[in-house]
């Protein structure tokens, strides 16, 4: 099938290729929205890519007081990793260093999964013997004394093995500003999709990569085919009208969540139109042989 054009934007006849991952979710609450977000943002810092961070994490959705277990404002945070052991390690390190420490915070399970990951049942040792175990309505909590009162933390949270990491698409524009605007509207739209996160800074990656490189030990390196400054020198994927490419990378609780997020993001870019935003949309893949999940762009159109 040749490339199609929707609302003046060229949609490449290609697909995104994604991988199976392990994921978990927690709900962080705080006395107000500012501090719920602060704890969530801190614990999801330096969590853009499993290549160098050990996990990929971000806020999934913000929760109003009516939707949290303690009636305070909260955030649902999702964490993705390649294996259960690494996910467990990242979860405890991040909650221990970034949520336990954040003023007024509390932490609850955010996922009912096929297996349990330790949360409060490991962090309770911070209490040094003064921690209190409480079972309330079938849920197990630990209360750990801290300097502003108590850190309440659910004993475990769920793990899902059905998570998908690496759903993506590229927005390609005539200027950097237009590419950025298109990517921003896509991220905003994906923010409304439950169960999907965009872990890069502000949800956007500019250094889309290829596997390996010419230097020994590089796991990933510059994707020169999409670098506009190399357009004339290498076998480029970019036409004469493209001067900036940004990538949206999506991790989802399920295959469906990733597809829904891609659809929502692409729809927003198309609605923005080529004059203000992207003139072309593409996606990254490895020829379809490595990833278990394939998202064809023509199936993702609104």
């Amino acid at each position, binding site marked *: 099938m040749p490339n199609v054009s929707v609302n003046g934007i060229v949609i490449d006849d290609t697909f995104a290729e994604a991988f199976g991952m392990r994921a978990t979710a927690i709900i962080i*609450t705080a*006395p107000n929205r500012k501090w719920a977000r602060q704890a969530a943002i801190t614990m999801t810092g330096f969590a853009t890519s499993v290549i160098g961070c050990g996990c990929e994490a971000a806020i999934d959705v913000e929760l109003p007081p009516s939707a949290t*277990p*303690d*009636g*305070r404002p909260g955030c649902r945070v999702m964490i993705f990793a390649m294996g259960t052991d690494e996910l467990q390690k990242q979860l405890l390190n991040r909650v221990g260093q970034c949520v336990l420490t954040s003023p*007024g915070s*509390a932490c609850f399970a955010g996922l009912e999964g096929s297996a349990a990951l330790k949360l409060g049942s490991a962090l309770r040792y911070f209490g040094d013997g*003064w921690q*209190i*175990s*409480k*079972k*309330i*309505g079938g849920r197990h*909590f630990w*209360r750990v004394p801290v300097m*502003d*009162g*108590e850190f*309440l933390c659910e004993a475990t949270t769920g793990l899902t093995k059905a998570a998908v990491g690496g759903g993506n698409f590229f927005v390609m524009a005539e200027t950097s500003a237009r590419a950025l605007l298109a990517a921003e509207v896509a991220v905003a739209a994906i923010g409304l999709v439950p169960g999907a996160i965009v872990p890069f800074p502000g949800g956007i990656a500019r250094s889309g990569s290829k596997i390996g490189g010419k230097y020994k030990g590089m796991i990933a390196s510059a994707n020169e085919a999409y670098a506009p400054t190399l357009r004339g020198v290498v076998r480029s994927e970019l036409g004469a009208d493209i001067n900036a490419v940004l990538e949206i990378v999506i991790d989802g609780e399920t295959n469906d969540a990733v597809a829904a997020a891609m659809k929502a993001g692409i729809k927003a870019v198309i609605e923005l139109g080529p004059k203000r935003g992207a003139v072309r949309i593409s996606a990254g893949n490895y020829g379809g042989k490595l990833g278990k999940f394939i998202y064809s762009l023509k199936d993702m159109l609104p």
Partner: protein
Amino acid sequence: MKALTFTLVAEPPERLDLSLLTAERLAGIERRDFEKIRIGMSKHGSKVGDIFRVAGNNLLDIVFEGGSARLDRVAEAMRGGSVRVVGDAGAQAGRAMRGGTLTIEGNAGPHAGSGMRGGRLEITGNAGDHLGAPLAGELAGMNGGVLIVRGKAGAFAADRMRRGLIAVLKGAGDNAGSRMIAGTLVVAGGTGEMPGYLMRRGSILLDRAPKSLSPSFVECGAPESVFAAVIDRHLIAEAILKRPLLGNAPQKYGGDNAVLGMGEVLFPR
């Protein structure tokens, strides 16, 4: 299948042991033999048929129509299904139950829910002394499940409790939560002398300051408490209470420091 219903014909002439009339104990007995089960505890030796009119056959839905303070050990050690007493129950109702629901639409005698490990026991009227507590010589009290008393409870409610939730809504007698090992006791409507006497761990949650506390309890401030918010919401969600009990920053007293001292008495300021 219709509920297995035992309708009380007249006030029993003696105390009755109803522990045989649960789904588990009746399972191996033919339906036509139910009337022959001996339940009288004295020389009368009353049988089920002498005291009750029996109808229905659903063992998982047992109803005692008409109550009496002489109906002891109702639903003892039940594991599932439901038992409902329309009227009063005697001593040790729901003792050692592990699952299912027992509802007493009246008053219960002493040792209701004694040593229960699971399930839900709700008493719409008052409960006697030693609610959920061990019998003399036993080491452990309530060890799981939910026990709700809509009326008053007598002395030593939740004695030696280790796990689970007891809620008393119209006040408890002296020494509520004495010797608690862990678990949660909720009392609205006031407590008698020295709640939490010799408690090791566990939580006693009150709707007002206790009128007396053992001097071995110490004041522990009133920081904001997420636990208070979570338990308040749980009690309302379970239809145990209609409005929050503790609020966001309850006053805490820690004790009993005559023993381990890791228990707490919380109440709104």
